[in-house]
Every structure is written in structure tokens, then in C-alpha cells.
């Protein structure tokens, strides 16, 4: 079977350097999946009716990650979201074997951070066809269910009996154009010419590799590997809509944490606010059209009661006022900035943390966008909401 790629979006965090990006403190697999996924959906021609997230960096093993993913992507609550624990070969296989209308998004948070997403289907995009697969065991790196890492620490073994043996097992008839899941140095020798480094080496690297090949209009064999395992697909290039979020890197600001603090949560309040807060939607009054954020029982303008429905808000934002909190607040990294922003021309303002920018750098009148971030972790529950990214921080 052949899979076709309608759109492909890549995302790397702002923080880090040219060599490696690192996730911000308010980013996790869900927020990064949403960032890449929204961009892929926005440029896709057709609708998305299924979501598959591939990562080994789950924010929680149990909770409601799938629901946050669906709401963050602003998809219907009837859309099936599946989270798959896997690396680069799994992400590549799912991109090559999922049904049209599926969003496949792969994310890496620990280490080199990045996310990439493809929407399958359409008529004239690049195509993927599975070629071969080698599922082998060489657990040089092990992460247990509690997140503890056990590293056998033998890079040579990994090169020889991991990538080397897996490449042999794939029995490819031609040299691949790109090998994802390892460093460019390790990929050298297996590909034609000098390989370009990919932003990540985990699950998302498979989709970053597809993006690189599509952008270079280089069809051929794409390999993704992870420890002893590898998978190969055949790529033909085509008119796949592409979007890239790759701001100029900046080193993560030094911030301090004084002490832990129990940040309380009320789950009834969380549940009532969830849709408005994660989808960024206001209550729109059916009587007068006024928007209230958060949605409320009684319209703030005309007084109509129980008559509003959620309506999406614009995400372009302008700073009305902003402050920089320097005093150490237990449980938070300080300093941090908070801003009240005007959302587009909706007349709605949002109180939001400022993110992807150095503390103290935000001024009244600054333009930018609001994006989904993990605002806090409250009694173990990741709490998602919107943060303001100044325009300059997204360039």
C-alpha cells in the first residue's frame, strides 16, 4: 500500500543552540504535538479524523493526555487519538501505513527536542511505501516505567550491532538518502554523500527526515532506526504542503526555583474550564453576539442567561500591559512575565504567561501569538492553557 502526505509540519523549540534544541519548561509531548499538529492540519486540504502520537516522552502514563491533544488540535471529541510509545522506526512505519485522514505526529522532549506531523491523504503529495523492517533487540538504553534510565553506555556496540546489523537486516537494494534516529556522523557511510544533521534522533527524527527529503526534492529510500531496530520506506516527492517552525535559537534563561509549593487544583473547576481553556474559545452570546472569556452564565453585555456557545478566538495578540515577577514564588521558576493581551480584533483579552522570550523583554504594544503550553502542574495534573509568544521570539 502507498500512503500520501497532504501536509508536513515541523516544530523545534526556541531554546538551545544551532546544534540542539531543548524544550522549554512549559513544553511537553502534548504541547509540542499540538504545535506541529495544528500547523500540519492548517495546511492540509482535507479533514483529520484520526490522530496518532508517537513518542517515548509521555508527560503522564495515566490521565487525559489524549483529550488535551484533541482539544489542543481543536478536533471533535469523536476523533480517536492514540498514543504510541515508540521511536523513529515506529513513527516512519505509521506515516507509511496509516489511512488517509490520519494525523501522525511524533515528538521528542528529552535531549534534542522537536516535533513533526504529517496529515495523510490528498492527491498530489509525496508518497511513502514500506520497504522492509528489522525488529531486533539491543537495549543499550533502557527507561523503566518510572522513568529511571539505565545506560549500558557502549556507543561502539550500538553502532556495530545496532545500526550496522539493522542496516544489513533491511537488505536494501539501494543506499538510503537519509537515516533518521542516529547522529549525522553515525549515518555517514550508510547514505550517499555527507548526511545533514536532523534536529532530533528520536521518534520525530523520522518525520524530520521526510521533511528534509521533500524540501530537497530528493526521492529515494528513507531509513529510521532506534537501537537494534530499523525500518525503511520508499519516498517519492510531490506537492506536500510544508510548514516549519524554527526560530533563531536562544539559550534558556537562567531562572531560579526557591522551594516546592503545592499548587492546588479543583478538578470540577478544571473540567468546567477545559474546553474554553484548551481550545481557546469564548462563550458567544446567541442574543447579542458578545464574547466572554471565560464563558459565563450571564452575558456581560446584554444579560442573556444560559444562551452562549463556545466560539474560537483569534490567536494573534497585542500586549495591553505586562509585568515581570522577580520575587521568588515557591513552585514557580522566577523571574517570569505575565501579560494581558488583546486577541485580534475580538475585543477579548487574555491573561497569559509570556513564553519563548527572555523575562523582562516584553513591552506594551508588542505583537505575537498565543500558543498552548503546560501552564502549571497542579497536584500532579498537567494544567494546559495559552501563553503569549512575542513575534520576535517566533522568528
Amino acid at each position: 500500500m502507498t500512503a500520501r502526505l497532504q501536509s508536513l509540519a515541523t516544530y523545534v523549540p526556541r531554546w538551545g543552540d544551532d546544534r540542539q534544541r531543548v524544550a522549554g519548561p512549559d513544553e511537553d509531548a502534548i504541547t509540542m504535538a499540538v504545535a506541529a499538529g495544528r500547523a500540519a492540519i492548517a495546511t492540509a486540504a482535507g479533514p483529520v479524523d484520526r490522530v496518532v502520537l508517537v513518542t517515548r516522552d509521555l508527560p503522564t502514563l495515566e490521565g487525559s493526555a489524549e483529550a488535551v491533544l484533541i482539544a489542543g488540535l481543536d478536533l471533535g471529541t469523536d476523533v480517536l487519538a492514540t498514543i504510541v510509545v515508540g521511536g523513529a522506526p515506529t513513527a516512519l512505519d505509521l506515516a507509511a501505513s496509516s489511512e488517509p485522514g490520519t494525523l501522525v505526529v511524533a515528538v521528542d522532549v528529552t535531549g534534542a527536542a522537536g516535533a513533526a506531523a504529517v496529515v495523510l491523504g490528498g492527491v498530489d503529495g509525496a508518497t511513502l511505501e514500506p520497504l522492509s523492517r528489522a525488529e531486533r533487540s539491543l537495549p543499550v538504553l533502557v527507561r523503566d516505567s518510572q522513568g529511571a534510565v539505565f545506560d549500558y553506555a557502549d556507543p561502539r556496540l550500538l553502532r556495530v550491532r545496532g545500526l550496522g546489523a539493522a542496516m544489513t537486516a533491511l537488505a536494501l537494494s539501494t543506499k538510503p538518502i537519509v537515516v533518521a534516529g542516529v547522529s549525522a556522523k553515525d549515518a555517514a557511510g550508510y547514505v550517499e554523500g555527507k548526511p545533514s544533521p536532523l534536529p532530533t534522533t528520536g521518534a520525530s527524527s523520522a518525520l524530520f527526515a521526510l521533511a528534509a527529503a521533500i524540501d530537497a526534492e530528493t526521492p529515494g529510500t528513507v531509513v529510521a532506526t532506534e537501537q537494534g531496530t530499523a525500518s525503511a520506506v520508499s519516498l517519492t516527492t510531490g506537492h506536500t504542503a510544508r510548514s516549519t517552525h524554527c526560530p533563531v535559537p536562544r539559550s534558556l534563561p537562567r531562572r531560579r526555583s526557591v522551594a516546592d509549593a503545592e499548587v492546588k487544583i479543583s478538578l470540577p473547576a478544571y473540567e468546567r474550564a477545559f474546553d474554553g481553556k484548551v481550545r481557546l474559545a469564548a462563550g458567544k452570546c446567541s442574543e447579542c453576539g458578545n464574547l466572554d472569556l471565560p464563558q459565563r452564565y450571564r452575558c456581560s453585555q446584554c444579560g442573556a442567561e444560559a444562551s452562549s456557545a463556545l466560539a474560537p478566538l483569534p490567536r494573534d495578540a497585542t500586549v495591553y500591559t505586562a509585568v515581570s515577577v522577580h520575587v521568588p514564588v515557591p513552585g514557580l521558576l522566577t523571574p517570569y512575565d505575565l501579560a494581558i493581551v488583546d486577541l485580534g480584533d475580538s475585543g477579548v483579552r487574555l491573561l497569559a504567561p509570556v513564553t519563548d522570550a527572555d523575562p523582562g523583554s516584553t513591552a506594551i504594544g508588542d505583537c505575537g501569538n498565543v500558543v498552548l503550553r503546560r501552564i502549571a502542574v497542579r497536584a500532579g495534573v498537567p494544567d494546559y492553557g495559552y501563553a503569549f509568544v512575542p513575534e520576535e521570539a517566533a522568528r
Partner: protein
Amino acid sequence: MRRVAIVGAGMTPFAEHFDLGIKDLLPMAVTEAIDAVDKGLDRTEINAAWFGELVSTDGFAAGILADQCGLVDIPVSHLENACATGNDTLRNAFFAVASGYVDVALVAGADKVRETSSQTTFWDWMAMTRDMAWDYPLGLVAPANFALHAQRYLHESGATREHMAMVAVKNHANAVPNPKAQMRFEVTMEQVLSAPMVVAPFGLYDCTPQSDGAAALIICGEEVVDRYTDKPVWIRGVGLGLDRVMHQHKADMTTFPATVKAAKAAYQMAGVDAADIQVAEVHDCFSTIEMISYEDLGFVPRFGAAKALEAGETTMTGRLPVNPSGGLKAKGHPPGATGVAQCFEIFSQLRGTAANQVASLPSLGLAHNVGGPTAVAAVTILGTAKP
């Protein structure tokens, strides 16, 4: 409604009273207020009491006042209205006396902010004042919520951090002679401007300290005033105003509509206007808030606070001394007690007995609080002339 006067007032020093609980501070302030009644008052003559406290420590607020002050045989009500609690407690007691329901009432206010670790105060306060789902987790600590206003105010008005520092310098100087004040030391402009940043634009000296304390007033109806004093201070006007609660819903953050509404109500009731006020205790939890409040109270035109500060209009020798006690800034701010203590100060100023007395002996004064997430304000106007 009949006329109502304050005949006695007292307060504990404001401080970090680690050695005194609410059960110590309350009776100290109440007894001082009773003892301050010129012709004497036996506490059995008090018909009812109102107690303003923001955060109850050691349990049930009204019961603690009744029990600890020997007032278990009269009705006692607890009132909480954010940082406007003190002046609103007086306002509610005023109505009971003015209506003729009682002749003599006790107004008490107290808070014990330093009863919990300063580390936990931030989150406790946010849990009390923020929407649990939308605002609480963002870390909008108390200085930040006022700083959101201050930043926009500086942006639009053209005022600077130097003007804010003038407020801090003035109020610190005023606190020096006041034995009830928490921060009895002067600061210089340079010290204020170079102090560590708390929440920009507020440096350390732009901010009120965390305080414990209690204050109390004895008020009575006009028919019985002569029994207690020949120098009553009349409650001329009271006002309370509200505003939208969440900051993102306040259309213009350079002004506090709650204050404008409270002041309008109080001026109207008193039959006076801002120009008649001769001394004022104004809410200055952060320096910029005193500036915005000058404008909201009508003391100066919109965005005229900086100019008034430059001209020294609100210093002890200016045309309208503001915060002769040191204000929240230097006297301290145990929220429930703050408004009551402001009335203690105005009562003392109008009777010529204040620790830092305005030399011209004012006859009309004003007390003002704004609080909550800047969503409530209370104004009280006191005068020596019988209304």
C-alpha cells in the same frame, strides 16, 4: 437616618507580631478604643459589634471577637470585603447605628498575615482572590496584579518610577514619628530606585510590608454622643464601589472604577467634594496605587498625580497631606485592620492628637481602600462639623 459619630479609637502597633495572636491583638485594640472615650464607656454599653477580618486565624472570627473581648452577650457579625474590609466594616456598623437599631457599636478590624510562612502566603492569597481554573495557576501574585495596572498607568500617564519613589519617600518619612508604624525609617530616592525588584515596576520600597495588627472604633448615635465626648468626629459619608473581578475584563487599567464609585457615593452623602478634603489616608499598598487613587478620588485631574507629587502637594505641609500615618506603605497593612486604622488616624488628625499631626488642624478627612483583585473600594469621610 440619624447622625453617627466616632467617640473612641484605638489600634495596636502594626508589625510582624510573631509573639501575639489574633486573640491578643483584638482585645488590645478594643480596650484602647474604649479607654480613648473622653468621658468613659463601660463595654456593657456596647450594643453590637462588627468585625472585619480577611483570613481567620485560630478559627471562627465573630466568636473570637465576642469571646476574647468579653462581648458574648451582644450580636457580633464578621465581614470580609477584600482590602476594603476595614472601611466597609465601619460602613455596615454605621448603618445599624444610623437606623436606630443600636446606639453604641464597636467596629473592629484585624488580620494576622504573618501567622503562616511567608513562603505559603503567595499561594494562599491567590487561592483567595483568583479564578481557580483560569488565573490561579499563572502565578498572578498580589504585587503582580497591581503591577499590571501600574505598567499601563506609567505608559499612558507619562509618570515615571521617580514619581513612584516620591510616594515611598513621603510615606516613609511620615511613619517616623508614628509609634504604631511598622517601618519607622526614612528612605531616599536613590534607595527606592536601586532597591531589588519585586515585580517590575515595583521595587522593594514601592511595596507594603506584610503586617499583623488590629484596630477598633466606638461609634454612637447623635442622641448619646454627649454622654461620651464633647469632641465627636462625625461620619459624614460612606461609599462602596465594585468593578469587574478578572484583570483581563477591566477595560481601562489606568483607573480603579471601584474607587470612583465609592468616592462619588461618599462625597454625595457628605455633601462635599474632593476639594474640601483636608487630610486623607489613601490606599498605597504599592506606590503607583496612591498616584492612581489621587485621580480616582478627584484630588488631582486625570494623569495629574506626577505633577502633584513634584509640587509636594500631598506632603505634610502641602495643600492636602496624604497618608500622614505612613500609609500602608510604611505603617503596615494587616488587611482587615487597615481601613479601621485609617479611620483611627483621621479621627486623631481631626482632634489634633495624631502622632504625626497636620499642623493646620484639618476638619474634614477621608479614608480609602481598594482591593480584591482591584475590584472593590471603600471610602469614608469624617468631619468635626456636625452634618
